[in-house]
């Protein structure tokens, strides 16, 4: 068959296989009504349809938690792993199969508590993964225990008199890691912004870390109440290299031009508590990407056998 014929076939294939967002969902998400995880799933489905990704060419890797059920609902390969350990699995998968699109979905306990070590190191390895931190400020699945991101003073079953420590700030932590290459924040109550942020993350080559702020309808329904009621408490980070979505300018008056290449400003903005900030804090495509720098030339079994003879010559008696 000529190469032209092949490319024609390809086009035909593509034409027949135009997938819409719903094609990327396998079944109804089994989360509580009003759970922020639904919003993330919707945004992801839209992204997959926009990019027309082949379901068999992507994998969603998660840990354990309500949010980690995510892969079960996506028409893709999925790995619902163990608590806190999605990132090593995803890194291994990406190293073995760099051609696959690999997404990671974690909860706040999953990523910033039990998986904190892997989070720091995966940030530094900077493999080409799209990483969603579904941060509801609480342990949902295990029913209302304090998480590292629970606001100070917030009551839970394990801190009935209120969380005693200041919350851990995942943006600040991630931005503090050398080789961090993409750090963004978005929120479940601003779907257009979430979708735009996901797109930017997907397009970035490297470890694209998005913290998605969301409410748990059962245990933290009110954590972001003030910001939701009053959009003036939120500042949008905008830039020609940032994210924007139609309609956002009407909702959010406070807008700050922030160049995502500016790490110092990114860090300073991430640690400020005066306002909630949504947008891309940092992005740099020039950092070493682990699966790229570690990529190796495939070697045939015959070549391996020949090479082994040389290795054994070193040990010959």
């Amino acid at each position: 068959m000529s190469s032209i014929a092949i490319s024609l076939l390809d086009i035909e294939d593509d034409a027949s296989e135009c997938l819409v967002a719903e094609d990327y969902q396998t079944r109804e998400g089994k989360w509580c009504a009003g759970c922020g995880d639904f919003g993330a799933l919707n945004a992801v489905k839209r992204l997959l349809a926009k990019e027309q990704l082949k379901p068999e060419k992507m994998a969603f890797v998660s840990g354990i938690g309500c949010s980690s059920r995510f892969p079960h609902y996506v028409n893709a390969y999925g790995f619902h792993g163990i608590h806190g350990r999605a990132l090593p699995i995803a890194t291994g998968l990406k190293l073995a199969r760099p051609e696959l699109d690999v997404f990671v979905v974690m909860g706040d306990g999953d990523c910033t508590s039990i998986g904190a070590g892997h989070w720091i190191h995966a940030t530094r390895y900077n493999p080409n993964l799209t990483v969603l931190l579904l941060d509801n400020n609480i342990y949902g699945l295990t029913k209302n225990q304090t998480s590292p991101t629970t606001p100070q003073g917030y009551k839970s079953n394990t801190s009935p008199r209120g969380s005693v420590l200041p919350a851990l700030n995942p943006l600040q932590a991630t931005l503090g890691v050398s080789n961090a290459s993409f750090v963004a924040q978005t929120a479940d109550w601003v779907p257009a912004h979430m979708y735009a942020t996901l797109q930017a993350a997907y397009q970035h080559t490297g470890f694209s870390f998005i913290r998605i702020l969301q409410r748990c309808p059962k245990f933290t329904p009110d954590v972001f109440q003030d910001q939701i009621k009053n959009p003036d408490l939120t500042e949008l980070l905008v830039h020609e290299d940032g994210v924007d979505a139609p309609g956002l300018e009407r909702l959010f008056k406070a807008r700050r031009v922030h160049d995502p290449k500016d790490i110092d400003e990114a860090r300073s903005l991430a640690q400020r508590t005066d306002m909630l900030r949504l947008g891309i804090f940092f992005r740099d495509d020039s950092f070493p990407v682990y699966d790229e720098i570690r990529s190796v030339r495939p070697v045939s079994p015959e070549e391996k056998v020949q090479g082994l003879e040389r290795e054994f010559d070193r040990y010959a008696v």
Partner: protein
Amino acid sequence: MNRTANSQTTVTAVPEHTVEIITNSGEGAQKCATIFGQTCAKMGNGVWTVEIIPAEIEPPHHTVTSTSGNIVRFGTEKVTNWGDRSKLAVAFNDQVCLSRHRLDSFDDDCIILHEAMWEKHEDENIRNNYAKAMEEMSSKNYRFIKVPIEEETLKVVDNAQHGKNMFALGLLAEIYQRDLSIIEKQIANIFRHKSAKVTEVNIELVKNGIAWARENLDFQFQIKSVPAKESRVVMNGNQAAALGAVAAGMEMCAMYPITPATSVSHELAAIIENYGGMVHQAEDEIAACGVALGASYGGKVALTVTSGPGMALKTEFLALAIMTEIPLVVLNVQRGGPSTGLPTKVEQSDLLSSLYSQPGDAPRVVIAPRSIEECFHAMVTARRIAETFRCVVIILTDANLASGVQQFTRPKFDVRWQQEPIDFSALPEGLRPYDWDSETGLSRRIVPGTPGGQHTVTGLAHDEESHVSYDPESNERGCKMRSRKLAVFQSTLIPPSVYGDEEGDLLVVGWGSTQGAIEEAVDRARAEGMKISTCQLTFLSPMEPGLKEIFSRFKQVMTVEINYSDTVGDPYITEETRRYGQLAWLLRAQTLVDIDCWTSCPGQPLRPNDIYNSIIDKSERGASK
């Protein structure tokens, strides 16, 4: 002044000898012993080399804790273990010598070529310590010969630290009449990346050692050698395992440094990229296991390499691999435990935890290579089992195999040892992710990228669709299918062979690295007319078939293991309270035979003589029963 061995020199023919080179760490004992061992191997002797490793990199010199060195056992026949105590030693100072004495490492009439400079050293402290050490060692009949090692070395180099080892090599070369041309080639090879001058100087030092020995020593030992017919290689168990991983076509080794496993990854890191693979040094053992699992999920059969404490950290991921039926090979180079235990020293105490460390029922394959050669082949076997049965395979070697150096027949590689390309072909209509064959529990491995195969694997209980399912029936079915695979695998195994007669008074059962030492002990007992045989297991989960039948042909069965067990008669210890050695425990459960054990955990490989004594003891107790 040169004279060849003459009438004044007594030449004693012996079948084998064990020699120690003991130094401060950093004084090059390793190089000396490697060259000596290689030379013996090349001359056709059987050889086994063991390192004496201090726990620290370079502890304070001239102390008992600074002891570093090597033991080389070589003989006319094949050598399968480090043997009993040493017949000859070269010691660079009295303190390192004393540390070996305290470990009872020297034969009662061991010849010790000892550095001469300490006895009359200007430092009073050193003189006193020397005198005390000699006093302590005088309880034995050692023959000390004072050798001006440093003084002679300084005639050739400015810094004796880097040179004494080659002078020592010369001493040994003369005593054992080693072929100088082979030594020269070895030296040239070791220093091939340095200037020609370095090689020259080292050879000069060896020659000086030879000359000194000729001049001053009145004895030599003769150990005949029979050049081997087939081509052979010589290496340690970690090198063999690393090369085995390459031969098995493994392309991902994820690890976190831990003694004594790390050198597997050193060997691999140096070469694996030429074979389409990589070594990933992860942030911890958990991550290492996760990265390996992720790579296997992506279609490879990945490897993770570790030792006890790292093994403990990997447990949760291993259960996930077992639950999702993703192939994975784990190499556990055992060291002494529990906790950080004996980092550089041997023990066989991870057997039960390798089988049972996971919560829930988590069937996996456990195999234990019995020799350095088997460390190589075990990797190939493990890769194949892991893939065929979609399971976890744990390989248990230990510090004895890891650092022991031995020659073996050069393998003839086969491309079929390697993994087949991933099957991305379209899936049959309706095929489910866990379409377990109800006879065998086997199902097709579906790798991401296979069109139409999308599903989510999960560590939660699941049905054939890989859907989370908590109903009693599907949980029982999952357990049954994962377990069935082991039974199917077991059906491919043959009963282990018995070394010695097929029936008799006592059967000694061992596993893994102790084979050589046990067989040697059994040979000794048999030579005295005892009806004793041995059987060395390599498959621990599932076990080889036919064990009960084999055991039934012996009046008594006893395991020999390098791990802890209680001794009946100790305070509180009775037949009822006694905790058994780990293999004994397993075999008792498996066969309902009243199996005894003799175990020991001295942080060193077992000595044939100690095993022999345990056999005698058992036979006597058995007879009096």
